[in-house]
């Protein structure tokens, strides 16, 4: 039996889907988190007779009229695939808005069961809903559900009702007015009859009062900056490193145990491959796990309490000015976890140019994979770590803003769209959901470290161990290795950026496979097994000492960080860009644009940073200036060509008229 979960955005469909199936799909306290349908089997505990029930989670829809792409997915699934039963999830705190879709679903002739979800919130507000009366009028079963609760949540009763409705031959169908206006009148009257609302103007005013400050057009930005700074302080300065110290201690112990087991007698190539290439390389990346877990825990709390939806509202007015809309913020916020789902969620944007631009710019927001790079360079080179992460987020927003402006000029599409977002109510964030989100990210991070990062580190180590005649490279001449000979020509290009060192060039290239590889490759090439160890590679040492080990100045380290954050994302994210953009021309342009942006920004950071700190420009200034000038000139030519095309179009229109 196939059961579809349908309802308005943010009514709790995915939360119910997760509760019924045991899956761990992304949920969020705002509309538009689910953009595609998802299927899974129901947990056996809900079907004592072991019946085969497939649950389909559909994107939120206000009606079957399909005004947006995700509403089309819902409409198409219900109308074409005809599920056996539809569970219509109705937000009990907002009956008026939810029942329009309910009436449309009932008319389809498919058995419908209404789940009055978030009933606990309605109860808390003092609202009373006459469920038997509602059920009688709609002629469908109506049940109370609280998907967020583990027990006494009404879900077993819901599944019982679903099974009964699915097996019943008789479908009672209520008739509703065809005219939308009359239908709304009917719904309003029905809600007046069945719902007793306790009007609490105080509570409304409190929510509004908070919004007046948090979502204020000017105050909203410094508040957002302060919140992100606090999140980075907690994750990378206060709690994160404290936990990382313990965690890295375990990795060190593993390293020591394996080293003692191997002893002196084993071939040194094999010993170093296992110890430095595999355990050391993977361990260096895994060492950042506690910092990442704390960061995602904090971000999940922010999202769950309803704050991130306000950030979208604050940013909307700025993004509108550069040809994007508030809808573009949703992929960018999702992209802070991982660029791939962020890019995938751009499909909710109807305007093609806006969708492609958003897919192109979403990777500029630092994703989870880039966090170890931020944490490494912030921790190693800068005493005050939290500002580095915060400034990278804000630099990402500024870069997105200017890039959108440039792309709008290049494409010549000045169309504007409007963003309406239903703001979720503020609520106390769920620790359980934050912990689940944190562990799911941690699991993904460990899997990635144990697969892609491990294989890359092993390959990098082998390439560094041998020369082209497959002879072991002497310790005194690492530049004769295969890796060095491949990376050196690339390193020349990076001299104007301050990091013309082959190890850094190799790390930047492996970063395209997975961004965490940057840290792993640096660990392997510099033979550093952990970036937290006070003796081996001190975090408390001055940046000059650390710079001597790596051969970098603090300014060059910042330029390297900027380069890695703003050049194209990993191959998997580029694949997602390809499928969402549906244009090879746009994809090629996006990669070239990201490459040019990363290089130019790193050049500016290094050269002007060096000028500011030493009084003169850094090495390779003239060569770098030529490259950056070529990038800027290409962009200007493209923008002017588009302006020319537009003028010709306008002239043709004038002549025609």
């Amino acid at each position, binding site marked *: 039996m196939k059961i579809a979960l349908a309802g308005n955005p943010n009514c709790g469909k995915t939360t119910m889907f997760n509760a019924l199936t045991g899956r761990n799909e992304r949920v969020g306290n705002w509309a538009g988190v689910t953009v595609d349908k998802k299927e899974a089997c129901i947990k056996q505990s809900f079907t004592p007779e072991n019946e085969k029930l497939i649950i389909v989670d559909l994107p939120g829809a206000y009606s079957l009229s399909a005004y947006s792409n995700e509403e089309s997915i819902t409409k198409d699934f219900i109308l074409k695939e005809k599920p056996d039963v539809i569970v219509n999830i109705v937000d009990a705190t907002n009956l008026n808005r939810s029942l329009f879709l309910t009436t449309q679903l009932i008319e389809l002739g498919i058995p419908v069961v209404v789940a009055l979800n978030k009933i606990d919130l309605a109860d808390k507000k003092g609202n009373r809903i006459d469920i038997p009366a509602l059920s009688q009028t709609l002629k469908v079963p109506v049940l109370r559900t609280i998907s967020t609760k583990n027990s006494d949540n009404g879900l077993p009763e819901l599944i019982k009702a679903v099974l009964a409705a699915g097996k019943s031959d008789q479908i009672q169908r209520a008739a509703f007015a065809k005219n939308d206006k009359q239908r709304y009148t009917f719904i309003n009257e029905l809600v007046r009859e069945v719902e007793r609302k306790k009007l609490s103007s105080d509570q409304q005013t409190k929510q509004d009062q908070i919004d007046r400050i948090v979502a204020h057009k000017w105050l909203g930005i410094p508040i957002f900056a302060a919140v992100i700074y606090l999140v980075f302080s907690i994750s990378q300065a206060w709690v994160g490193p404290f936990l990382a110290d313990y965690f890295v201690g375990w990795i060190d112990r593993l390293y020591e145990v394996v080293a003692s087991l191997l002893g002196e007698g084993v*071939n040194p190539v094999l010993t170093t491959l296992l110890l430095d290439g595999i355990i050391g390389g993977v361990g260096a990346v895994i060492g950042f796990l506690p910092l990442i877990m704390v960061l995602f825990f904090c971000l999940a709390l922010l999202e769950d309490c309803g704050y991130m939806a306000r950030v979208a509202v604050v940013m909307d007015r700025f993004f509108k000015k550069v040809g994007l809309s508030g809808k573009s913020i949703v992929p960018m916020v999702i992209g802070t976890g991982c660029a791939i789902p962020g890019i995938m969620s751009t499909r909710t944007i109807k305007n093609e140019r806006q969708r492609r631009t958003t897919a192109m710019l979403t990777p500029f927001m630092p994703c989870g994979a880039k966090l170890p790079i931020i944490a490494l360079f912030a921790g190693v080179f800068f005493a005050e770590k939290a500002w580095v992460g915060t400034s990278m987020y804000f630099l990402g927003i500024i870069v997105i803003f200017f890039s959108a402006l440039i792309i709008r000029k290049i494409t010549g599409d000045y169309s504007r769209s409007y963003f309406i977002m239903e703001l979720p109510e503020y609520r106390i964030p769920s620790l359980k959901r934050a912990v689940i989100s944190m562990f799911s990210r941690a699991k993904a991070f460990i899997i990635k470290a144990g*697969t892609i990062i491990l294989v890359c580190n092993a390959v990098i180590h082998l390439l560094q161990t041998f020369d082209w005649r497959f002879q072991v490279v002497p310790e005194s001449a690492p530049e004769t290795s295969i890796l060095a000979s491949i990376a050196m020509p690339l390193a020349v290009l990076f001299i104007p950026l301050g990091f013309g060192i082959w190890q850094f060039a190799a790390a930047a290239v492996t970063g395209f496979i997975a961004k965490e590889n940057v840290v792993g490759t640096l660990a392997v090439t510099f033979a550093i097994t952990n970036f937290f160890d006070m003796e081996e590679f001190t975090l408390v040492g001055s940046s000059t000492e650390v710079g001597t080990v790596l051969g970098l100045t603090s300014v060059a380290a910042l330029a390297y960080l900027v380069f890695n954050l703003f050049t194209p994302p990993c191959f998997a994210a580029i694949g997602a860009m390809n499928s969402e953009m549906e244009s090879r021309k746009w994809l090629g342009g996006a990669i070239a644009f990201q490459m040019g942006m990363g290089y130019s920004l790193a050049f500016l950071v290094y050269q002007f940073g060096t000028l500011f700190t030493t009084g003169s420009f850094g090495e390779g200034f003239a060569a770098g200036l030529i490259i950056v000038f070529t990038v800027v000139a290409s962009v200007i030519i493209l923008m002017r060509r588009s302006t020319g095309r537009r003028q010709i179009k306008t002239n043709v229109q004038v002549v025609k008229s």
Partner: protein
Amino acid sequence: MSGMDWIVAGVITLIIFLAVSKILKDRKSGVKCTGCSCAGSCDQRATSGNCAE
């Protein structure tokens, strides 16, 4: 190569083999990025669940 060398080489090969086979298995089942932190949202299996599996 001594006996111990062969054992260590075998362990390294096994570790790399397991990692590569996990990546290939994920590719086959439609997962675009092994272990990316998208929390399953790019997992193709999520859109084609089958109780029989």
